[in-house]
């Protein structure tokens, strides 16, 4: 069971429930970014295309992936997730870029 923290707009879109910051998903096979997001999109189909671009399958430019106080956005999507994330001890964070003014 992997814990995922979604940005607010994606929590709303996925209708995870008020006050719920984290969701959990089961990942079959080796836990990687790709496998995790595949599992997330399977559980919440409305998130397809919102985290990764449909045509390129790449992370959207204004989103970042954090885990264990590290920015792992530029890791290969097929690299293993940190052990603490894979074990459910730490969450995988999907973070929207800060912007405004």
């Amino acid at each position, binding site marked *: 069971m992997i814990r995922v923290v979604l*940005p*607010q*707009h*994606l929590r*709303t*879109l996925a209708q995870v429930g008020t006050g719920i910051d984290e969701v959990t998903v089961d990942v079959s096979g080796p836990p990687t970014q790709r496998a995790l997001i595949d599992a997330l999109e399977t559980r919440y189909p*409305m998130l*397809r*295309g*919102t*985290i990764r*671009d*449909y*045509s390129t399958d790449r992370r*959207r430019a*204004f*989103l970042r992936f954090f885990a264990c106080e590290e920015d792992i956005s530029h890791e290969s999507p097929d690299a293993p997730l940190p052990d603490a994330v894979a074990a459910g001890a730490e969450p995988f964070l999907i973070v*929207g*870029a800060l912007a405004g003014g």
Partner: protein
Amino acid sequence: MMDVLMSGVRVLVGTRKGAFILNSDGKREKWDVSGPFFAGWQIYHLKGSPVDPNRIYASQTSDWFGQTMQRSNDGGKTWEAVGNKFTYEGVTGTHQWYDGTAHPWEFKRVWHLEPSLTDPDAVYAGIEDAALFTSTDAGQNWSEISGLRKHGSGPKWQPGAGGMCLHTILLDPTNAQRMYIAISAAGAFRTDDGGVSWTPINKGLVSKYIPDPNAEVGHCVHRIAMHSARPSTLFMQKHWDVMRTDNNGDQWTKISGNLPTDFGFVIDVHAHEPETVYVVPIKSDSEHFPLDGKLQVFRSTTGGNEWEALTKGLPQQNCYVNVLRDAMSVDSLDKCGVYFGTTGGQVYASNDAGDTWNAIVRDLPAVVSVEVQTLQ
């Protein structure tokens, strides 16, 4: 015409930060505002099915999260996310980039939704980079009508300042095979065979800002409007110039007449008078606000050339909003209601065909689109 006392009006407002729905009875004097729906997201367009007004489609988009699509089956009370996969058919190809180089087509967002005139599960979507898509299963799956983008002129199309968007889709109510679309900045196109093949319909358009002012494509068409009773006649607000055609777009004629400026974005036609047309002149392409700080709708009851300013109820000083291309609509009551939204967050409405105006809501986020449903 519908009976005012038995009818209602629902106004669908898309803004930079969510959607709002305004309801009134047929008098159109008191308005109930609900929303924001999809708070924080850009809602480029919402539009209801003419067959089933409770079926509404919405384009929800974000620089962060891309494009999502929403559908309501209960008049906008509740919504469900539907399909958001827009994949160009075949080899993607290139169009011109701002610097004249070849640039691959890339999907960015859905600008405009046009539900079918006969089937509530069928809907068209105009997207950026410019292409036409359709769904026949109520928005779950989308496929490209690729004959348009594969028209031989495609590599010459280029984006306007707002992107290379397909923003206008007009369905001919008398001919199911005929459809018109417009792209900024490629121009207008027509199909007479249900979308298989397309013809540029830009003869008579003159755009001084392009190398060949009379080119077949490259014109920055901002909006086209049609009256359902006279679908061979179209009215166009081009970047500069207000135009009309009476032969399905084969030839356009300038009808700017006495307008104080003929730059603008919106144009629409009175619900019951095919020769009564509305525009909102904007000062210029470098100053996107009303002339002299006065918000004025101009109405022609003669199909163009002779225009009168409609100002009662509209701000006549210090007004520097814009009215974007999808932000005007009419209802079909008697008298015809006319509605438009501004980038300052007001939606103005007239329940007397433009003679007087009221802000039916104000201080919303910048309004991108306004659509009106006349309900029985």
